């Protein structure tokens, strides 16, 4: 008869491999979210009205539908319909990334709007084009302001990533579930998975805080 402890000991390397998968999914979707969210934010603040409308719809769509529904919709519905043969892992990153881009665009939009109006005026007054002003003056300041928001976004994504087990992505939660259903040591395995999630949240938040301190502007309180 296997004790909870020996099960844990034997399955730990297997679980930890899942940590890598989880991290790749989270960091991948966080980056994808930034890559897409940044232009969305800029478009929503500075773009023409129709563009603002479209971006608004995009944000509304990805924020309004539950994650599990989106995962199934894309994995079983949309991509097969388009004859796109994506793995569960890829779809997980695409879906989480798209949702995150909607949220990140709003974080960034808030950050851009909180930059004093005088900054844009000053940049234009000295002869910068709007694009130059956004790239050199507005975004460097806004991105710094957005770091606390990202910190939050990271922990949300980390927790959401557990849901992708429903597609069969071999991340931490999926592996814990797999071992638990074979050994019946549900309590210790899910506790362990939860604990690892907590540590990852803690470490990630710490890393982002360190980044925040590092790029913080001298003289700002």
């Amino acid at each position: 008869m296997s004790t909870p402890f020996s099960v844990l000991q034997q399955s730990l390397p297997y679980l930890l491999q899942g940590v890598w998968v989880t991290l790749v999914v989270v960091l991948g979707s966080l980056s994808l979210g930034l890559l897409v969210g940044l232009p969305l934010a800029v478009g929503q603040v500075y773009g023409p009205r129709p563009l603002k409308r479209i971006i608004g719809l995009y944000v509304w769509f990805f924020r309004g539908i539950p994650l599990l529904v989106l995962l199934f919709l894309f994995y079983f519905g949309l991509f097969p319909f388009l004859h796109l043969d994506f793995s569960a892992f890829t779809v997980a990153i695409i879906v989480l990334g798209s949702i995150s881009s909607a949220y990140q665009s709003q974080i960034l939009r808030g950050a851009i709007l909180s930059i004093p109006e005088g900054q844009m005026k000053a940049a234009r007054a000295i002869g910068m084009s709007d694009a130059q002003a956004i790239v050199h003056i507005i975004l460097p300041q806004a991105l710094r302001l957005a770091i606390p928001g990202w910190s939050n976004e990271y922990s949300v994504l980390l927790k959401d990533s557990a849901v992708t087990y429903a597609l069969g992505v071999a991340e931490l939660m999926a592996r814990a579930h797999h071992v638990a259903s074979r050994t019946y040591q549900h309590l210790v395995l899910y506790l362990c998975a939860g604990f690892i999630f907590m540590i990852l949240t803690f470490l990630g938040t710490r890393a982002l805080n360190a980044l925040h301190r590092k790029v913080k502007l001298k003289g700002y309180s």
Partner: protein
Amino acid sequence: MIRLERVTKIYPGSAFPAVDSVSLEVAEGQICMLIGSSGCGKTTIMRMINRLTSITSGTIHIGDQNVMDMDPIQLRRQIGYVIQQIGLFPHMTVYDNIATVPKLLWWDKKRIAERVDELLDLVNLDPDTYRFRYPRELSGGQAQRVGVARAMAADPPVMLMDEPFGAIDPINREVLQEEFLRIQARLRKTIVFVTHDIDEAIKMGDKIALLDAGRLIQFGSPEELLTKPKNQFVKDFVGADRTLKRLNLLRVKHAMLRNPVHCLEEDPSEKVAEKMIEQDMSYLLVTDRQGRLKGYVNLYDLRGHKGTVGDVVRPLSLTVKPDTNLKDALSKMLSYDLGIVVAVDDAGRLQGFLNTRTLFSVVGESYDERGGHWGRITADGRIL
């Protein structure tokens, strides 16, 4: 040269023009002060000149070019604009702030570095101390200076300055004004300068444009505004003390008596004393052979003295430059309670002197250029 012809601005959705058919011309190398109460359209005029705001009607020329025919971004790079809120970029060092425009113009690194140092020197900030500071690490006055340096980075012939000294205490403001005039004397930019402060306008402007509710009420030299205010509004604006304000405009050289009586330091004391008694003088200015002011002597010290005047000369700290304005000269005069100030040039050579009477006659409307007068020192030590 900047020329506005019947320039009008009506903001969309607004019933009244923010700027109403304003015409004015700023000659090459001159400073035009825009003054008027809050909301009278000063910033709007500036923003139309570099096309940050569209012009509803009328034309604006810079040199012989209509600004509407120029590419707005190219136009703005030829115009240094110090905006009302300074607007330094907080995420950039002083260096990068000033270098923004040169970088846009693709200057090479070495040239940029030299230019930044040159500009920091120009606005009186030590490059080694301030180069790598962030805007939050500067005082308000230092930030203003950096703002001015940034606007001047690419050496634009035209400058628009929207209350550049607005947020500064009176003492530092005066220092900045002096520095600014010193810089302007050398660089001779064509400048439109917004202020709320009539004294600043009088002190700095070659021309003053007084605005009210978008309309140009009077446009002329400070002298004209003070002596020939067009209507009651202008009178009220320049204030009841406008006669005193003229002191700001006039310089010691306009009022001083030239070639005052003096003696040389190697003159024998006995001879000088004799002359002074003869002429009923009790004090006399002393110079060396090159005409440099050494001080003054009084009759009491000379009586019975066997040597030369140089042995008994007393230093005279109360000197001004011919270019000092009369307000400063008067306040010096009052604070030393001597009734005179002596003007010397940069080399310390005696140029002339001022007493209360010359001052009073000058601020009265009956002012005329005077010179060639001889001073007389009375028995009570006053110089007439």
